């Protein structure tokens, strides 16, 4: 029962979604949209589970004075205040309710956005260090990889004068021919893998996600 019902549900909904793909009728579309809405709604309950896990782990860190417990307090404070502002309704702390709450928007604009953008910008440094380490590897494959990368990077460089048109053409050819071929091979392999794994999940062969009986 504990195992059979989930496996039956996986099979039924999996086969239904496959059949739905071949039925263009409106009624089939509506059922599909129903299920999508359901998945989003269930996702919010799952998020509540996740927040509970975060609170519990942070609280345990503070309670048992584990290393860096002070920062766990920062996490909880940030979480608490953001929820307070985000769920504000009718109390109007500083200004309008819900997602238009002034403090909620300020936290988003002046905390989330700057940190997110800065984390993203770290890639500029990491891409350089990754290229350097690949160069140090001195294997033929790493050299080929870096050579291709170099040609593509130089493509937009206007300082090479007479050589630039040839670099551009070589880069264009690299992108449109061998790059396309290899990407297609990977995509076909990945596509087959996804289809095979989806089939295993639907048929109940792949059941690691359900845990043990």
């Amino acid at each position, binding site marked *: 029962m504990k195992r059979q019902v989930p496996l039956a549900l996986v099979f039924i909904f999996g086969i239904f979604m496959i059949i739905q793909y071949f039925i263009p009728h409106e009624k089939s579309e509506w059922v599909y949209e129903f299920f999508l809405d359901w998945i989003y709604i269930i996702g919010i309950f799952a998020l509540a589970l996740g927040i509970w896990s975060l609170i519990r782990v942070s609280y345990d860190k503070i309670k048992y004075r584990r290393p860096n417990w002070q920062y766990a307090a920062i996490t909880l404070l940030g979480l608490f205040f953001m929820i307070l502002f985000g769920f504000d309704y009718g109390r109007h702390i500083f200004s309008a309710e819900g997602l238009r709450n002034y403090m909620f928007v300020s936290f988003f604009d002046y905390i989330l956005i700057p940190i997110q953008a800065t984390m993203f910008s770290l890639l500029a440094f990491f891409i350089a260090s990754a290229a350097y380490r690949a160069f140090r590897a001195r294997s033929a494959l790493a050299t080929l990889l870096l050579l291709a990368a170099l040609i593509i990077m130089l493509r937009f460089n206007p300082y090479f004068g007479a050589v630039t048109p040839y670099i551009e053409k070589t880069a264009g050819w690299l992108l449109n021919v061998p790059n396309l071929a290899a990407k297609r091979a990977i995509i076909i392999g990945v596509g087959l*893998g996804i289809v095979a794994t989806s089939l295993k999940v639907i048929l109940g062969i792949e059941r690691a996600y359900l845990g043990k009986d």
Partner: protein
Amino acid sequence: MKLTFLIACCVLFLGFPVAGFAQDTPEEAQPADSITTPIPAPPGNVTAWDTENDHGHSVSLSWEPSPDDGTGLGNVIGYIVFRSDSPDGPFVDRGVQPAGASGHTDVGSKEEASQDYMADYVDYYYKVRAITADSLVFAESVMVGPVQSYGQWFNTGRIPVLVFVLCFMAITIFFIQKAKSGANLFVRRLAGIEAVDEAIGRATEMGKPILYVLGLGTAADIATIASYTILGRVAKKIAEYQTGLIVPCYDPITMTVAQETVKTAYMDAGRPDAYNEDMVYFVTQSQFAYVAAVNGTMLRERPATNIYMGKFYAESLILAETGALAGSIQIAGTDEIAQIPFFVVACDYTLIGEELYAASAYLGREPLLLGSLKAQDYAKAAVIILAILGVIAMNVGLDGFKDLFYISN
């Protein structure tokens, strides 16, 4: 004589400009509105039918272009399609096509509240108007109708997909049955997966934990599902060696599944007491906040091995480089093609694309999973054969072969 000569000179002197003026003027002097655009011939043979393989609310039309479109008078610049739900009108504009066009699809909205709503099972009437540069000069076709729109219950344009689904199911079930009957199915070695055992051993010797990152996919993503299986195997080995395990999660449902997987692995290894629920924890569902937290964990906990298996996006390089800075052995696997190059460059071992899915079969050596892997290989062999046949067909002029793979919508 002199008077005659004088009069003749006056006539000549005055007559030339007058004659020249008279010659120049007719073209300039005629008013513009006296030039009329001739009426073109209307488009012919207009037919309308319900659009096939759709959810309804759409009618397709075709017509023969006006004889004055590109030839004849050459003054047709386009066509306007008009629709009414009564043969007496009023007709409303339902789209424009350029000169040379011979068809149009009138697509309406399925939302009743929308202004563009087009009901199914209602009679519609159509006219096609050939237009010229002068908006007052046009020619309309004969009205066609009534025609009704409705949804279909089977999309015939997707038959190739159905054929391949059934073929793939048949191949998979065949090889699974073959594997169940005890046939020995060979799988070549995957360097990335063989390195996992070595990496776990290294972590045990160093007394440091192993960091396992399931990626940023949802619990239902195929890459994440493949990652659960690998996590289960890794967790079982870790339980046997009594090494530490850290699994920070991005998606809360993934967290619940991962907790279940790790708990099961510890029980299978005979070490249920060693399982701690805080090994697998939720961080946040924000991409870079998650990465910031995992980076911090890497630098503080200094795991001996980092394993990245699942769906990754732009943060892949940040994770891999930070792990390299922390001195960890790194094994990665993802199906995100854009991120594979970064893992290849920054990690010690990388499972490229399909190898991630094969890894679960490779690790467990379960007959059912190996049978499915065999089916994938046979499908790839079929791709090679089809590609060769397709290329031959193209070069001998058999374009119909490629049409077998055409999916209309």
